[in-house]
């Protein structure tokens, strides 16, 4: 299903531009901050950085940036027709692009989160945080890829979802946890360490993450099947 050429081109587009440095800034910032604070204080003073900043903000931002970079610009300037005018199923195109976005989210989002967790305390808690980040990062990248296929304003729409729905409203209304990618990830991480919160139940969290991931990539492919060339709007 995965087309190596498309994956390669998407990776080149992601790595070869200025946006790569923006993407790289996040993990560097996160790890550097955790290391500095851990070095200057005793105990696990740096740990709150993860539930307060790394997990709810840095991880989704990396996913937004990665997902919109592999699809957004090409759809924007129409050069995606060079990829789509080929006898390749559009679902394969979507999947190949998602693989790149997913890998970038893992490397620049989930991995540094895990490293920070190790630095800030380690133990089961760190593994749990790492697992939560892998699950949520995977779901985020597929969800945001689908958003990129729908609207030119994918970045802002994705940010609204993360910051307003999951962040602002999620803090006020506990019910939002049932429809929150971040909370699903945390719930699955909770299985490894009970220090993580327990917002929903495991079957729901696992099923919802899976459905959004598969559904997001499939939906993106479906939108690409109906991709239309038209002028600027």
């Amino acid at each position, binding site marked *: 299903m995965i087309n190596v050429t498309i994956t390669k081109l998407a990776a080149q587009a992601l790595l070869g531009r*200025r*946006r790569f440095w*923006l993407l790289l*800034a996040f993990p560097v*910032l996160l790890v550097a*901050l955790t290391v500095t*604070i851990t070095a*200057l*204080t005793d105990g696990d*003073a*740096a740990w*709150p*950085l993860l539930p*307060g*900043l790394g997990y709810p*903000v*840095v991880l989704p*931002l990396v996913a*937004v*940036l990665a997902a*919109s970079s592999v699809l*957004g*610009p090409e759809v924007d300037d129409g050069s995606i027709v060079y990829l789509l005018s080929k006898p390749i199923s559009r679902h394969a195109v979507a999947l190949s692009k998602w693989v790149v976005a997913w890998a970038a989210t893992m490397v620049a989002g989930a991995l540094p989160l895990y490293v920070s967790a190790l630095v800030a305390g380690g133990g089961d808690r760190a593994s749990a945080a790492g697992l939560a980040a892998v699950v949520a990062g995977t779901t985020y990248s597929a969800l945001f890829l689908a958003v990129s296929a729908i609207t*030119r*304003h*994918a*970045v*802002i729409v994705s*940010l*609204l979802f993360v*910051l*307003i729905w999951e*962040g*602002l409203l999620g803090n006020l209304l506990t019910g939002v946890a049932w429809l929150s990618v971040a909370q699903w990830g945390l719930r699955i991480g909770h299985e490894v360490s009970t220090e993580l919160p327990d917002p929903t139940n495991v079957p729901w969290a696992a099923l919802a993450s899976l459905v959004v991931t598969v559904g997001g990539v499939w939906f993106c492919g479906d939108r690409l099947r109906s991709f239309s060339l038209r002028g600027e*709007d």
Partner: protein
Amino acid sequence: MAEQRAGVIHDLGYRHYDGPREGVATIARTLYVTGLRHAFGLGRSGKSKILPFLLLALCTLPAAIVVGVVTIVGLSELPLTYAGYTNQVQLLISLFAAAQAPVLFSRDLRHRSIVLYLARPLPAYVIALTRWASLATALLVFSVLPLLVLYTGGLLAGLDVGEQTTDLLKALALLLLVASMLAGITGFISSVSLRRGFAVVGSIVALVVVPGVVTAVQAITSEEDADQVGVVAGLASPWSLTNGLASAWEAGVTVFTPPAGGWVVVYLAVAVLVAAAGLAAIVARFLKVGSQ
């Protein structure tokens, strides 16, 4: 082939205009008003109105609810101050700035339609200033509107006028700083990163991630009894500057490491400096593009 032909400009019946013309001031004012309207999607497509007004509604709705509660329950004072309210909705204000700055700053530069403006008698720096003023005003309108709802509702519910007005004025002074800083920062980011998506992410980093880091650092330093470090860290982001000042002015915002004494002056000076630097950077950017 090389036969000589006399050129002629055909008279199509257009009349020459040599009456009085409006000056630079009027052009700048028109540009400013258009920019302000565009920041809210007015005069643009229906789709571009959705986001600004959705954010505005999210930002104002809680104020209306608070007023309702105050009236029905009959409280003698607002449950939170005006500056406290702004502090609560700072994420929405940041999102509005991040989302709408590219509308004012990226489009002209990206599509090179900026040359059409430069073909008018308006110098590039005036255009930059006008754009900045439009965004700053839009931010001010966006953030002051809920406060006015609170204020009007509070007064109608019979709260103390003097107290409310003092509180509101403190908040307004802070918002003036916020609007200038945010317009400078997001405007500069959007005029450099012309792809809308990256401009938005860049602005979010500056307005959400960095303040988040600062707050985290302040929380830790306060716990570790190293408040001074936290106070210095507060200089690093527009929101921590604002919240620090708000706490120093007793406007109803608490921060982990409040600035005191001379630090208040430093906070104020840095805030003004940030706004000025942002504005200067935008002007420099427009001058550079204008000279290309």
